[in-house]
């Protein structure tokens, strides 16, 4: 980010054409960099304008939007709680799957596994983290749901349900949490560990008593990034969680999430400036702010723990 030497000192001696060329290129690249700001501004602007139209249309007030437990656009009921509830449910189930698995795997890889094992497993995790989410959606619908039906009974588990979507999502974010946590664990200075071993601690005591607490901020950051990923995840819930909002805490019932609703409504041909069209932007801006806050928090945490050991 910081240029180490400033070439502008020499540039005074350059020919006019060369000077203009240098200036022009610098300006062009600066413009390119500003475009990325433009993308964010564009997203915020578009989401807020359409969301404003939604709330000023007279169909629904902001208070009702956040308090009503009914989302039935057909009868003009727009309460986000059922959608938010199922988003939180799928994300929570995902974290219950990916959290423990990810952190245990990270401890194993950083503290127990041989370098050979680690060198084999890490690239596998990286490649698997790159599998498109649509594939996980297919897996949820064709494998996890029948599996749950076999265990809990055909009547209890719906064809579309939040449990199946959540489990698939958990498998999706497992490699990410494992990989990020492993980075955090490996960054703990070896001196700390050696001191503990020197005092006669077992491997478990070193891992959970020394390394884990020292890396806790990095692991927290990994969890938050994973959560943000789960909240914004679309294809798995669009395929496996079901269509139609449903305010339920039963993970075996069908319930549409925020992203699932956006995908379903925009997938059909909707007219511009209708309530349906504007409603997806109202949900969109809410989703945007949730993920933005989660991302910023995780970045702050990462920055902090970098400062401690650097």
């Amino acid at each position, binding site marked *: 980010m910081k240029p180490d030497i400033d070439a502008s000192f020499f540039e005074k001696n350059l020919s006019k054409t060369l000077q203009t060329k240098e200036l022009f290129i610098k300006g062009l690249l600066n413009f390119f960099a500003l475009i*990325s700001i433009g993308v*964010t501004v564009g997203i915020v602007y578009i989401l807020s304008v359409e969301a404003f139209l939604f709330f000023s249309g007279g169909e629904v007030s902001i208070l009702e939007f956040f308090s009503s437990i009914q989302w039935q656009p057909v009868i003009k009921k727009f309460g986000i709680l059922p959608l938010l509830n199922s988003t939180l449910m799928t994300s929570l189930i995902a974290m219950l799957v990916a959290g423990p698995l990810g952190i245990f795997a990270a401890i194993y890889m950083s503290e127990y596994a041989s370098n050979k094992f680690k060198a084999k497993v890490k690239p596998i995790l990286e490649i698997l983290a790159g599998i498109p989410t649509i594939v996980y959606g*297919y897996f949820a619908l064709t494998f996890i749901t029948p599996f749950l039906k076999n265990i809990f009974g055909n009547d209890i588990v719906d064809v579309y349900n939040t449990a199946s979507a959540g489990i698939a999502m958990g498998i999706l974010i497992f490699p990410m949490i494992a990989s990020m946590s492993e980075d955090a664990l490996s960054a703990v200075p070896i001196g700390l560990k050696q001191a503990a071993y020197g005092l006669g601690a077992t491997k*478990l005591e070193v891992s959970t008593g020394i390394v884990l607490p020292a890396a806790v901020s990095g692991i927290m950051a990994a969890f938050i990034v994973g959560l943000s990923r789960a*909240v914004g995840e679309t294809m798995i819930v*669009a395929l496996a969680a079901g269509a139609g909002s449903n305010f339920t805490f039963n993970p075996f019932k069908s319930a549409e999430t925020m992203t699932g609703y956006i995908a379903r409504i925009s997938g059909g041909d909707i007219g511009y400036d209708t309530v349906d069209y504007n409603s997806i932007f109202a949900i969109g801006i809410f989703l945007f702010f949730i*993920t933005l806050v989660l991302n910023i928090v995780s970045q702050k945490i990462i920055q902090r723990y970098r400062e401690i050991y650097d």
Partner: protein
Amino acid sequence: MDKLRKRKNVISRIIFQTATIAGIFALSILLFSIINEAFGYVIFVNENSPADIYDSDKNLNDADEDELIAILEQNLSKGLIRRFNFEKPFAERDVKNILELVMVEVVNPEIVKAWSLTSSIFGRKKILDTLAQDYPTGNLEFRSWLTLKFLFAPQSSIPEKTGIITALSGSLLLLLIAIILAFPLGVGTAIYMEEYAKQNRLNSLIQLNIYNLAGIPSIIYGMLGLAVFVRFLEPITSGQIFTTTVNNTANGRTILSAGLTLGLLILPIIIINAQEAIRAVPKSLKFSSYGLGATKWQTIWHHIIPYSMDRILTGSILAVSRALGETAPLIVIGASTFVAQKPNSIFSKFTALPIQIYQWTARPQPEFRKVAAAAIIVLLVLLLTLNAGAVLLRNHHNQKKKG
């Protein structure tokens, strides 16, 4: 060391190891379940059995041209025969071609039931029972849903005839547009941030913003694309301002709109990767160039970019593989549900490989699940190829720098 501590240590080790293996196991099941669906027994039922339309003790495959044409004339309407003759006269067709016509138009085998790979292997007896009881006229066949025909056939509403060529060419065009937009923009931004930007508030805002862009859910990019490219820029993205003859039903929901949206989506990934690549260039290289009197841009163009190019490319390949699998933004932008023809320009309606998989999976007929599994295998093979390319490039780079 006392016993309890020792035992705890061993048990915890087993738990950690199990978790690692369980995670990898879950991912292997995922891959297995897809392969499991893509191959297996199917039961065909013929609309007209070959024995009825041809001599019952001879094989249809042995029939000569005249016999086959006779079969066609017996079973098809005159209009249809005339159409086939118009497309290509029967006299010019060879036996193989006419046989295929007979198979498709007259025999018309249809899949009525399909099994997965595991039930084909372990439940053969049950399958044979079903065949004997429910479909006495049916033929059992072991089928791979992933065939060459599947790769090169256009979309169709019949599962055994459908293919992915429209989706594949759509995906290819989307990626092309995305990379044309994002690569120069991303690398340019990275150069600015690493080589030009002074440490001030605006530039640290830009940097923070780039990291945040990478974390925004892809469906939000889809909404941006819907509002900006599809709606606001419709005259451009539907090609109306370029042609006077408005012959377009896409309403801005075109390959161009979708490609640009994917371009914005991968932009932060390309920037971050390119920044890391440029940061890895040795300072000495830069200083020697300055020392010889080169200007800033000359140094960047002749030394920094060539030195970091393979790493920039590696990052960009990974970004492209991300774009290849993205589904949600394309749904929001409005991928078409049925596109039977290959896209002929960037202003065509579009479908893409992941969209196709989504639509096939969402259909109620179980046969389409098999088709979706075959398409997923194609998608994963493409991704694996891209990733392998990136890894090879990285290794090549490492060797070069060492040697």
